[in-house]
């Protein structure tokens, strides 16, 4: 009963999740944790600790070998392939390498996420411009990605992930390629999005950023959960 209640309250819940690549490389082992609605959680650990794998499981880019994953009260391991797009509309994703389309402008890149999920063009204009203002790119609407700095490209990527207003946002090392000042700018945007009610799980190994934010920290090491601490600290 307690388990059911927790599942209903949690936005994300993992129960004994294990992932083994090619039957021999252990990426995650027996991970269990729950993240409540509106939380901002850092997922930390050294390279190869399983952070990206965990995010891929939550986004159904990969499937767990054992255990179950619940997103917004729904188990996603048994989700049919045709229903995965619906899951991805409630779980936005930000990547270290931005994954912007080079032949589209800033506006077009963000609008693309709305268009491909069936939004009419009128809604596209309504939603995209205020969001680009939020991330501080209202003066670069018609620039192409190669005309932007790394920080600006990441802000476009955040706007694209958030344009559908997903209740969950996964960020895979979003500041990995950025200098400390730019990273702080990205953190401020993510904080703002979190204040608007979106649950954020951010993978990083930037200890400075984690310790400055004083948020919940989940630490992985060699695929095992070794620390889960509210207002946690991380020392790489």
């Amino acid at each position, binding site marked *: 009963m307690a388990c059911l209640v927790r599942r209903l309250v949690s936005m994300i819940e993992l129960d004994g999740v294990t992932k083994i690549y090619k039957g021999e490389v252990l990426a995650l082992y027996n991970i269990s944790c729950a993240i409540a609605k509106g939380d901002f959680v850092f997922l930390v650990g050294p390279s190869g600790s399983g952070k990206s794998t965990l995010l891929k499981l939550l986004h159904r880019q990969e499937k767990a070998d054992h255990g179950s994953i619940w997103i917004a009260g729904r188990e996603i391991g048994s989700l049919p392939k045709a229903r995965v*797009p619906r899951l991805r509309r409630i779980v936005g994703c930000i990547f270290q390498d931005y994954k912007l389309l080079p032949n589209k402008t800033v506006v077009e890149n963000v609008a693309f996420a709305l*268009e*491909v999920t069936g939004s009419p063009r009128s809604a596209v204009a309504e939603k995209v411009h205020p969001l680009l203002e939020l991330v501080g790119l209202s003066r670069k609407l018609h620039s192409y990605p190669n005309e932007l700095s790394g920080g600006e490209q990441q802000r476009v990527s955040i706007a694209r992930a958030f344009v559908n207003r997903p209740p969950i946002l996964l960020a895979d090392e979003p500041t990995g390629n950025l200098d400390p000042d730019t990273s702080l700018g990205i953190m401020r945007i993510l904080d703002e999005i979190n204040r608007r009610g979106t649950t954020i799980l951010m993978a990083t190994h930037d200890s400075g950023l984690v310790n400055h934010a004083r948020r919940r920290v989940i630490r992985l090491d060699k695929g095992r959960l070794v620390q889960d601490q509210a207002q946690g600290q991380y020392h790489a």
Partner: protein
Amino acid sequence: MFSFGFIFRETRNNLRWNITLVLATVVAVWVSLTLFGASLIIREGVQQATQRWQGGIEFIVFMNPDATEDQLVAVEAGLSENPEVESWDFFDKNQSYNEFVTAFSNQPELVDSVTPEDLPPSFRVRPTVTNSEAIEAVANSFNARPGVRLVSLPLDAIRVLQENTRQISVFVLVLSVVVLIAALMLIANTIRTAIFARRQDIEVMKLVGASNWYIRLPFMMEGVIQGLLGGLLAVPMLFLMNDLLAGFVEEDFLALLRSLVLDGGAVGGIAMMVTGIGAAMGAMASLFATGRFLDV
């Protein structure tokens, strides 16, 4: 929600980015469907001609050039009394000469060497029976009459004609099927290239939650459009071919080949079918290509 505008824009972009390959594919579909349509026109023409020949066949009783009036009257009476003869026309020497001059107008030296007196008068006979053995029996009954030089039956010519046209039709059909298969593979490969060229877009579409059909449809429409365009281009070619055939057989003075020419309605029916096959080819090839190369 479903935005057709987005699907159309993506399809247009796919076609534009891939324009040279798309054009090559459309040409391949066009050629293959023209050949296929041509084979259908020939088959249809042979069927039509066979029906007409069997229904309206005539044999010719050639008299000797020096046949007497009595001999002509006797043959005439024999034709009138025969219940298996539906009707007949008499061609005297002058009418035969006029026909000869028309038929050999491109050989003036031959025309010059012949006078109306050299040509035999003849009876053009349409029997009531339709099967070839019965017609042969009626025709032969006039063979032994006095003054008759020979009875000419076009049955052998029809058989040769049927056999030749059947062979041509089969050859064109086989050739068109081979080219159709090549065109199918070309459409599939064009779409594969488009999928490869747009792999980044496809990856982003998947990551932001585009449904499988949203990703697939622009590629499928691209295939259908290529097939449809090839089919539509084949339509005027089929009408042109039928017209060329009509012009060619006009010179056939026996009018034997004229039955091979189809009317506009029949060619239109074949043209519609060919266009439909083009669109279906595009859909099939793109369904295969997206199923095989698009991991959604």
